[in-house]
């Protein structure tokens, strides 16, 4: 089981992409939300909502990888071993949540490794830690909204 279980409250999401920005900075040291490891999709003009797609570490990617390049870490998340990955992108096609990401700069796909920065910096509590929903510093949030 993964140490961090991500959960979302889609209704809270404002589409700001802070999650993608901090994710790409944390993992790639790059200011580039296109290298974020979760997806934010605006559904406009109707119904007027955002949808968040995130990895729940289901492991389908590891199952389908023909060269066993996706490994399960002791902390319960799956990660892409770039040394083994051939860039066939089968996992990208098969991912049930569309959260195996690609970028023109990179030959291999990348995925969420449960670092949790999105949880810490999501301004809306839209993405949170299922085991610790009150983790953020602004607990009054729900009441105020």
């Amino acid at each position, binding site marked *: 089981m993964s140490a961090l279980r991500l959960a979302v409250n889609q*209704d*809270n*999401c*404002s*589409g*700001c*992409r*802070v999650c993608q*920005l*901090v994710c790409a*900075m*944390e993992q790639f*040291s*790059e*200011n*580039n*939300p*296109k*290298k974020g490891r979760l997806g934010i*999709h*605006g559904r*406009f*003009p*109707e*119904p*007027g*909502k*955002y949808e968040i797609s995130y990895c729940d570490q289901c492991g389908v990617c590891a199952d389908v990888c023909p060269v066993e390049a996706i490994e399960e870490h002791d902390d319960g998340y799956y990660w892409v071993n770039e040394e083994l990955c051939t860039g066939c992108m089968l996992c990208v096609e098969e991912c049930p949540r569309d959260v195996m990401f690609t*970028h*023109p*700069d990179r030959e291999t796909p990348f995925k969420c490794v449960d670092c949790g920065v999105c949880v810490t*910096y999501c*301004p*809306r509590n839209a993405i949170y830690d299922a085991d610790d929903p009150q983790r*953020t*510093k*602004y607990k*009054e*949030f729900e009441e*105020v*909204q």
Partner: protein
Amino acid sequence: MLYGYAGRILRVNLGDGSKEVTDTPEEMAREFIGSRGFGSKILWDELDADVKPFDRDNIIVMAAGPLSGVLLPSSGKISFHTKSPATGGYADSNMGGHICAELKQAGYDAVVIEGRAAEPSYLYLEDDEVEVRPAGDLWGMGCFEGEEYLKEELGEDAQIALIGPAGENKVKYACIGHDFGRQAGRCGVGAVMGDKNLKAVAVRGSRTIPLKDPEAVYEKGKAMYQEVFDNPGFLEWTPEGTAGVTDWINEIGSFPTKNFWTGYFEDYDKINGRAILEQILVTHKGCFSCPIPCGKYSTGTVGDEDFVVEGPEYETIAMMGGNLMLDSIEKVAYVNKVADDLGLDTISGGNVIAFAIECFEKGLLDEEMVGRTLEWGNVDDVAYVLDLIARREGIGDLLAEGVRYASRQIGGGSQQFAIETKGLEWSGYESRWAPSQMLAYATADVGAHHNRAWGITYDIAVGRDALEGKAEKIVELQHLRPLFDALGICRFPWVEIDFDLQHYEEIFKIVTGMDFSWEDLLRASERIWNLNRAFNMKHIPGFGREDDSVPERFFEEDVPTGPAEGHRLPRADFEKLLDRYYELRGWDVNGRPTPETLAELGLDFVIEELDLQ
């Protein structure tokens, strides 16, 4: 190499489809920072005085700043610059959403759009791919339908800025819409797109924005977010957003009501931020990287029409709520939606329609001219006139020119209540008992707009009748607020939740590697301010003190009702403020920068071109 900047400027000629990519000049970055500053400089350099706003030779500059798209709170403001259809002088208008960060990621600090397309077109940018494409069915569509159509064609992640029918028909206050509810609303920037046969700009970018010190920016950016979260304003201000200020503005008697006849609206609590939250809110909608989303996506039903809209925000509440006397938030949201979809600025739009209703009331317009009667507080009347304006049908053709032109044509004393400065309609603060704010409206570079200097809190803080220190305050604010526009970020974290300005100085250094102090940045902002003044001198014949005027209504009529009842700013006091303001700026009594002032700011090229020696 420049850091923070994307490093390239794209130039596209719509006439022959040619394009050119050049490096962002380092000197321009140092002198004019970015976004607003780049727009100002490029307009100055490239527009001859005899180019008219709707000439093929007018240009549109779409520009981001060095902090745009960077990991820090609210870093996604793009600005559009052109020769103003509203004033004939300098124009810019900015908006949030996601297109600014996208443009930087496509690798551009600015796009300069020249010429006129032979047929309705849209511009597609994806990293190095640049294409002028036929607009086809897109032409004629409203902003919502058009954006949906393009997203279907290009993909959900393409960011789109587009005009509606009002822009196509060159309404002088046509806006540019984006992200189903954000607008670069002012000055008629959308009309210039229409004149160029340019329906939309669609952008997609994948690149990393280069930072001088990415690790330091990451740490600093995170600390900035954390500080926003810890600030009490975060939870207090965000839920209602800009609409939250409605009660206070009304309480101090500055809420434009009935075409700025008065400053107090009885039904204010039916159209305020609370009303949005309790009656119409669907979701809080944010711009790129913003932790305090002021966008309120809403829904409602008026007549038999169900609708969704982003808003209303404060300006729309003021200009289409109080100023038109609409007495429910649903009605305000509805006309907000009608205007947004047609691609009309709700500020000028609300102002123009209020002017039309007052004309009707006074017998200067009649049923035959308008096609129906007009009265205050009637949502159908408002929607009807908006539609006429956007299509330039009937009386709409005259009203599409704005209140300055319309009042000159209509006559009958209507100029007294044509609420404009320099030809641009006033926005949402009645200022007869707020001398700083009055001065701010009189002297804003683009015409009557509040966002260059919001002095009203200062009027309240130091005493509303006082004049001392007010010109000083406005000069200070006119450098400070537009500096955010030059950096390409939103000022709300500072303005609305009291975020420490020190943060921006620090992050600017580690993003760009330029060792500028905050004072240096303010100095650049002053340079931009003076350059825009010079632009107006170059482009508007006889430009000077007369152009820094306010509507006669404000000198002739006391505020008749509400908390500001009995007040108005004496003309002599206004002139005194203006004198002081010019003195502080180093301008002559006619409001023209002296050669010494220009030289001190490094604007020698202006002295030369205007032949000031």
